């Protein structure tokens, strides 16, 4: 079986009349991106503001070019479909998205209705809908919350609710745009651990735009780094953070990786977690 997502030479250019989401008319938001993503993989996307992170996500769910107009060149295949020629509603059966602001995603009066909302739009029969809502809430650890008002939940619980709404649709690809930026450390770790489990168990691929390098180090299978719309680095967290550390980009890597790079300036892979560093250091002794 081929990869779930295959992108070849993807270039996205905003119309000149509009400065676009990244505020840069004329210059490409993404330039010559080639990338594949396999089922079950958790891929972290890093990059500074304007590097094209959000644009990449929005190409995968068809928001670009269907709702945000842009010129999209190259080839994109998501679960056998080209998002450019597939209606957004049809793509939504396979591709779900969770955004950074949990409250902004809430529209319903109870937690259960919130999870059911997407299923109703897919016209899932009522009996099956009940089962799926129940299952999804159990999967994200919100089983007892079905009748609560979503706005009475904490930020971390609201983000897990958003994930429940997404996984109830049984997507093959889950996109997450800075999902932890409003969460405290405990809630953020819980959310990423959950997503990792869901990906491993159900074969769903996850593409997550995330600033927190320590979270990516702990929970991503793979990290890609975008710079000015180009794919700068792509590999395991151990390889990507080693590369960035050797380039002197110490603020963009976990501190233990920065430390390891000073001890071994030639290594192509370096520890990225405290646990990994303890093992790596004892192996050197």
């Amino acid at each position: 079986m081929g990869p779930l997502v295959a992108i070849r030479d993807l270039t996205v250019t905003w119309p000149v009349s509009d400065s676009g989401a990244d505020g840069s008319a004329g210059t490409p938001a993404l330039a010559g991106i080639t990338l594949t993503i396999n089922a079950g993989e958790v891929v972290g996307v890093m990059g500074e503001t304007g590097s094209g992170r959000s644009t990449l996500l929005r190409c995968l769910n068809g928001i670009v070019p269907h709702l945000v107009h842009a010129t999209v060149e190259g080839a994109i295949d998501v679960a056998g479909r080209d998002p450019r020629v597939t209606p957004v509603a049809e793509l939504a059966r396979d591709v779900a998205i969770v955004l950074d602001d949990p409250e902004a995603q809430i529209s319903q009066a109870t937690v259960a209705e919130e999870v059911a909302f997407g299923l109703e739009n897919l016209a899932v029969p009522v009996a099956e809908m009940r089962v799926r809502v129940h299952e999804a809430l159990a999967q994200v650890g919100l089983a007892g919350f079905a009748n609560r008002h979503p706005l009475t939940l904490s930020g971390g619980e609201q983000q897990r609710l958003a994930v429940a709404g997404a996984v109830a649709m049984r997507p093959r690809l889950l996109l997450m745009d800075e999902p932890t930026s409003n969460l405290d450390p405990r809630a953020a770790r819980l959310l990423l651990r959950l997503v990792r489990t869901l990906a491993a168990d159900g074969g769903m691929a996850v593409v997550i735009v995330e600033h927190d390098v320590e979270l990516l180090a702990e929970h991503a299978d793979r990290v890609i780094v975008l710079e000015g719309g180009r794919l700068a680095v792509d590999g395991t967290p151990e390889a990507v953070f080693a590369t960035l550390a050797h380039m002197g980009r110490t603020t963009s890597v976990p501190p233990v990786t920065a430390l390891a790079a000073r001890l071994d300036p030639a290594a192509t892979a370096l520890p990225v977690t405290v646990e990994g560093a303890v093992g790596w250091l004892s192996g050197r002794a």
Partner: protein
Amino acid sequence: MSTSIRGEFAVTLADVSFTYPAAARPAIDGVSLTVRSGEAVVIAGESGSGKSTLARLVVGLLRATGGTVRTGGMDPALARPQAIAGFAGLVFQNPNHQLFASTVRDELALGPRNLGMHATGTATRVDEAAGRLGLETVLGDHPYRLGIAVRRRVALAAVLAMRPRLLVLDEPSSGQGPADAARISALIRDEAASGTTLIVITHDLTFAAGIAERIVVLREGRVHGDGPVRDVLAGERLLDDAGLVAPQIVRLASRLGLSGPHGALLTPDELLPMLAARDGGVTGEMPGAAE
């Protein structure tokens, strides 16, 4: 650092409580705390620990339901708005809560103008604040045309333009990429070096370690820990109870049983010599281990 003419303490909280209307429990529950003039203090805690409420009490956006708050010698909830705004500036976590004007230039001019400054003085302040945050090229733009990261810098510049003696920042690093976070961290250190008193709210202890001398940990509206950065960060159990995670290097050093002459080791630069001493040492005992 010379003593401020306003006195030794920029902020004094004595047994302060605050309960939001209709809330089941107080958001701030009997907090006593002083911040010296010129001190840089981080207030850390998980969501719901009361840290943003504390910031609002300090600048007078909320009025304590119990105890007393003194900011620059004033009761911030009762002082004239101009008097308190001339002393203390709060930068919100969400810039959309504080941006009103239709250009960045007007946004930055708003504060100095409200403090009674004339046009030329205001223009100087605007240029200075814009320069410090790299906003020179967007002065004519509408704040909401800008991306969220730039908008956050506009919110910070608007407060800096008032040259507050006390700067209160609510989660300044949240949602910022590593380069932007490093820039904000450098700016905070600059402010501290120039004598501004700083209260920085954050749950990112790696960020905190780079900017503060002292960390106050809040848990369920109470002071759960308060001390020099190295002492607080060495208390893994205390941090865990408060829902916080110590910086990686602190955790690694602790796993390796290494500490420095002043307590927890915070950065690779601090840990590397200790590692070298351990690996090169004859006895395995490292020099300069903590008492």
